[in-house]
């Protein structure tokens, strides 16, 4: 939205207002709206990632050129009076085009940067997306269809120039920089009235008079009306202010009479003071919320320590982890995510479990290639670039044929996506969609269970995460090449495998790779003449890519697959040391990643694991567990001082945060003896999950929940219900990040509001592990926190508004309605309960249990965390176990007094 009309036009032009904003405000044109509409349509066409059937041609040339090619021939633009082609003919490069438009509009060069900023802020969602794409060089669609902000700006400015020219022609006015400033200088009163009228800030009862007077064009009438209007507006504003102060005073216990008893100056001071304070009001409430939260959190920790000292109920509640149950002590590694806190608390209460918090990718950054998918997915935080690839490989024969249901599904969706077929499809199979809709709406659980039975399931698969030796890689490539040769022979000569021998295949392959020359045995056996043989070999090289260049590329790709044993031990060792689990291993160690299940939800990845790049954490958990279970890795870990007993088994699992179900994975990898414990663990996990579901149901405002069983059923329904706009609250209400021993928080109910990262300062005298936490998990947690913060303080501008009106665009984002700015941030249903905020806007309260000096040294050394702390993006509290003091950092107190100490007792 363009800013208000309070400041003079000359001050705002180029800083807050573009030329067309000014024209819209002065002459009631709607250039800004039209420009956004035309631009968004072009952007939707260009950035489409497979949603549209007829794709924009020429996208590989980049955004500006592809758009220009279409715009030159766009008759609709021409019919609207926009001569875009004439502008585009004057420059080919986007940079030159920007220069041309800015010069033609007469904008002084020293104002260009400000002007560009205003232009970019008009559709900040799209501009942000283009900027992200430009920086994501590895992103497939960016490599294929490149775009950057220069392109974006050039397109925007070309449209702006065309629209301004057209509007100027119709209004018979010059709408360039100088002319508008001149108009503002020579017609100051008319300018104010016009802006008030067209910007929607006019006093409603004056609107008609202003319109009529402006139409008359009589300067004397305009000046007279201006004086009337200004007087009335000032009076009404004063009345509004006085009334508001009166309401506030009444709320504070002062009646009207006592207010009026004060002299005029005092009343002015009160009113001015109140309005001046309004600018800082938001921050005041934020600080109050933070302060209350810090006080409560530190109070809880102190109380827990006191209870522990007095040997009272707190320790009994804590469930002493040293008492092993019938299955022995079970340890569980959970993601630091706030949603793990509830489950960890209930799991510890249910049985003999010791839980740890660690970033949900478990310190194993990988690019994952899922079975049946041709691309890599980075399963690690966005701050990390994975160097190693893990590949999913089925260990049963994969069925090539799809089920009839899948086939029908595919056909119907293909028909739906074509241009003309939907008109027929609706008549022919529309009823089927009706059944689908009824099933999904009225019996989501039963219907989805039935549908899942119809769909083809992915075959069981194992993960290839071991580094291949050179011989293994060569063998793999050779096998692949043989497979290609086989297919080619069958297709070209109709010769089946049983008619061929391995030496024949090998010979053909070597010929294609140019390692040998001359006639092949295959040609001799099947009577293929020399010319046909040469054509076939060329086809093998070009069409089937059996050539030395391709082989080299394949070997390079294979070199990225997996980790060497030493690296595996290094990763496992670092993760275990980071959480302080270096000894006292139980017989079962659960590695619990997390993900979510929901239907019809474009924001599903926002509910998955942030540490896994917005994906589910099971793959990382499986790789971590598999590595940690390897004898070779354990041997190497022993050399590092971490001895994992032979009877300890790491078991991967997935916590579904929508249903609070925990599924154990890779149980077929466990020895039979370990399997005996699994049933009991499953029961405990189910019980803890149900208790968590019951707690979450209260937060979700669910009624008629008779107990944990009913709660589990209810949340399961949410996960499968396509009409559910809030399958879970996700990370809403996140408030703090506790880096320390579990003992600090074990007895506390943190209501799913705390990120919990296990850390034991006693095993980290040099602070290396803490450094890793501060530069990785803390940064990600702070991103999440601020995303929620901004989404709740202004959900329309920084969040994405209501989900109800959202539509997916181009398979990469959402818009509101059919055309809008690309929505950023989180939807209202994640942030608000009704019209009240559910998430409390607080900066992340980061609590570190470590010696104060160590934290200070690290902050001095680490740029990013230091900036976050000193610039007030997070609130830092250091719990110093050596001095029994909590140091609360508050930059408001100035550099010297920023650390505010207070005594605190910490649990042993």
């Amino acid at each position, binding site marked *: 939205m363009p800013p208000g009309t309070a400041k003079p036009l000359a001050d705002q032009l180029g800083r807050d207002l573009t030329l067309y904003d000014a024209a819209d405000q002065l002459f009631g044109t709607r250039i800004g709206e039209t420009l956004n509409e035309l631009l968004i349509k072009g952007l939707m066409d260009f950035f489409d990632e497979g949603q549209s059937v007829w794709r924009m041609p020429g996208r590989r040339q980049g955004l500006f050129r592809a758009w220009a090619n279409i715009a030159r021939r766009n008759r609709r633009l021409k019919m609207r009076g926009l001569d875009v082609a004439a502008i585009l003919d004057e420059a080919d490069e986007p940079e030159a085009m920007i220069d041309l438009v800015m010069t033609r509009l007469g904008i002084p060069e020293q104002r260009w940067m400000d002007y560009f900023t205003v232009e970019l802020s008009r559709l900040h969602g799209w501009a942000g997306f283009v900027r992200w794409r430009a920086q994501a060089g590895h992103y497939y669609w960016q490599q294929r269809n490149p775009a950057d902000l220069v392109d974006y700006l050039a397109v925007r400015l070309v449209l702006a120039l065309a629209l301004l020219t057209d509007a100027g022609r119709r209004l018979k006015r010059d709408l360039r920089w100088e002319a508008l400033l001149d108009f503002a200088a020579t017609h100051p009163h008319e300018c104010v009235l016009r802006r008030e009228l067209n910007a*929607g800030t*006019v006093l*409603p*009862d004056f*609107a008609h008079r202003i319109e009529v007077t402006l139409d008359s064009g009589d300067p004397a009438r305009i000046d007279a009306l201006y004086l009337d209007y200004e007087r009335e507006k000032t009076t009404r*504003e004063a009345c*509004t202010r006085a009334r508001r102060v009166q309401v506030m005073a009444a709320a504070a216990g002062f009646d009207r009479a006592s207010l009026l008893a004060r002299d005029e100056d005092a009343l002015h001071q009160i009113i001015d003071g109140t309005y001046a304070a309004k600018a800082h009001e938001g921050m005041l409430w934020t600080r109050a919320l933070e302060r209350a939260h810090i006080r409560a959190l530190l109070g809880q920790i102190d109380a827990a320590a006191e209870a522990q000292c007095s040997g009272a109920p707190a320790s009994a509640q804590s469930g002493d982890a040293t008492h092993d149950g019938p299955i022995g002590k079970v340890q569980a590694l959970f993601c630091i995510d706030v949603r793990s806190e509830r489950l960890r608390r209930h799991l510890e209460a249910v049985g003999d479990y010791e839980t740890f918090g660690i970033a949900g990718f478990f310190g194993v950054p990988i690019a994952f290639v899922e079975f049946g998918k041709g691309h890599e997915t980075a399963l690690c935080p966005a701050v990390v670039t994975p160097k190693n690839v893990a590949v999913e490989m089925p260990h049963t024969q994969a069925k090539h044929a799809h089920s009839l249901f899948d086939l029908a599904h595919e056909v119907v969706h293909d028909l739906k996506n074509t241009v003309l077929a939907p008109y027929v499809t609706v008549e022919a199979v529309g009823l089927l969609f009706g059944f689908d809709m009824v099933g999904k709406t009225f019996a989501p659980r039963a219907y989805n269970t039935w549908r899942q039975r119809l769909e083809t399931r992915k075959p069981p698969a194992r993960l290839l995460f071991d580094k291949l030796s050179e011989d293994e890689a060569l063998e793999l490539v050779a096998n692949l090449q043989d497979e290609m040769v086989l297919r080619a022979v069958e297709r070209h000569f109709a010769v089946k495998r049983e008619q061929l021998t391995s030496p024949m295949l090998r010979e053909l392959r070597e010929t294609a790779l140019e390692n040998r020359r001359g006639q092949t045995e295959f040609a001799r056996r099947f009577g293929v003449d020399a010319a046909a043989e040469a054509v076939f070999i060329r086809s093998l090289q070009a069409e089937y890519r059996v050539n030395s260049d391709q082989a080299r590329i394949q070997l390079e790709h294979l070199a990225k697959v997996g980790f060497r044993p030493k690296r595996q031990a290094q990763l496992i060792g670092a993760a275990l040391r980071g959480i302080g689990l270096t000894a006292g291993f139980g017989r079962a160690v659960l590695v619990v990643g997390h993900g979510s299940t929901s239907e019809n939800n474009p924001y599903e990845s926002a509910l998955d694991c942030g540490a896994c790049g917005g994906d589910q954490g099971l793959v990382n958990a499986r790789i971590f567990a598999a590595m940690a279970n390897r004898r070779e890795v354990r041997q190497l870990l022993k050399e590092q001082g971490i001895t994992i007993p032979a009877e300890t088994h790491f078991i991967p699992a997935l916590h579904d945060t929508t249903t609070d179900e925990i599924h154990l994975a890779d149980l077929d990898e466990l020895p039979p003896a370990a399997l005996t414990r699994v049933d009991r663990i499953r029961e405990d996990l189910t019980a803890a999950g149900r208790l968590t579901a019951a707690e979450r149901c209260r937060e979700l405002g669910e009624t008629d929940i008779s107990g944990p069983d009913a709660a589990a059923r209810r949340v399961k329904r949410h996960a499968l219900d396509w009409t559910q706009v809030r399958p879970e609250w996700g990370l809403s209400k996140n408030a703090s990040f506790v880096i320390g021993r579990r003992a600090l928080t074990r007895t506390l109910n943190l209501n799913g509001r705390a990120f919990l990262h296990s850390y034991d300062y006693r095993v980290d005298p040099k602070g290396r592990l803490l450094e890793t936490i501060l530069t990785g998990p803390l940064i990600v947690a702070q991103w999440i926190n601020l995303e929620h913060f901004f989404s709740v303080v202004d959900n*329309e501008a920084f969040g994405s508004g209501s989900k109800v009106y959202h539509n997916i665009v181009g398979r990469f984002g959402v818009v509101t309605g059919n055309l809008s700015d690309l929505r950023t941030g989180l939807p209202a249903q994640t942030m608000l309960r009704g019209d009240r905020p559910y998430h409390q806007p607080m900066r992340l309260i980061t609590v570190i249990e470590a010696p104060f000096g160590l934290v200070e040294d690290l902050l001095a050394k680490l740029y990013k965390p230091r900036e976050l702390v000193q610039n007030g993006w997070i609130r830092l509290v250091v719990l110093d176990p050596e001095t029994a003091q909590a140091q609360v950092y508050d930059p408001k107190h100035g550099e010297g007094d920023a650390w505010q100490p207070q005594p605190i007792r910490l649990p042993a």
Partner: protein
Amino acid sequence: MGGLLGMMLALPFFVLAGLCLPLFPLSIGINRFIQHLPKHAADRLAQPQAKALVLLVLPLLGAMLIGVGSWLAGDGGGWLLNAFAFWGGLTSLLYAFRLLSARDGQIWVGQLYTSALALVWVGVAHDVPPLLPALGLAASLLPLWFLLDGLTQRFGIARTGLYPGLALRMPRFAALFIVAVLVAVAVPFSPAFFAVADLAFGGIGANELLTLVPLSLAWLLWTWAGINLLAGIVFGEPRADLDYVDLDRRDVLMHGGGMVLLALFGLVLVEGIL
């Protein structure tokens, strides 16, 4: 009656009816009247209640004049009525199109009134009795007329874009306003809808093109204009510098009651169709 003389005698009656069931340019008068602002307190004819009464009486008068004209024209007056139907269709489309850009409440109602009542001529050409459809179309505008008057009393003017976001600040008013706009643009089951249906069913057998083109196009444009009206008043971000005062319970009952009465009138129209 009938014959050439009958037709010549009928013509002035039809033209006079064209003032009541407005045909362009005769429609300028009624639109001027609707937009006329009171110059002083005693200007009773400019009061909203008086204007509402005129809006209801004019269709009755128009129907009566058409009745007399038809009697005078006799059986041979078909071509004359067809010409008036064509004229009515064009008038309706012209005003429906202009409605899209109308921002002022009174202009909006005036143009919709003209566009709607001009359609009655389409039915008249095909022997649809004009009284009930004309009354149905005119009466359907009354709730909106009074609610727009409420806006004028609150804000000094009833116009889109000046005080958006009524749904957030005046939810009761906004709810009634939405219903009133939908009733005015003849959404299904409003009296205006049954009136349009009456005209369509009556005329479709005689001349599909002359009946359906103006009716369906005008209806489409009304709906579009209705959405524009709602978008500029009910939805959007409310202004912080204005005081929004919602309807009290008595007003809600009064407006709601009026709409229920209209719905009952719609039933009479259904009976007319059946």
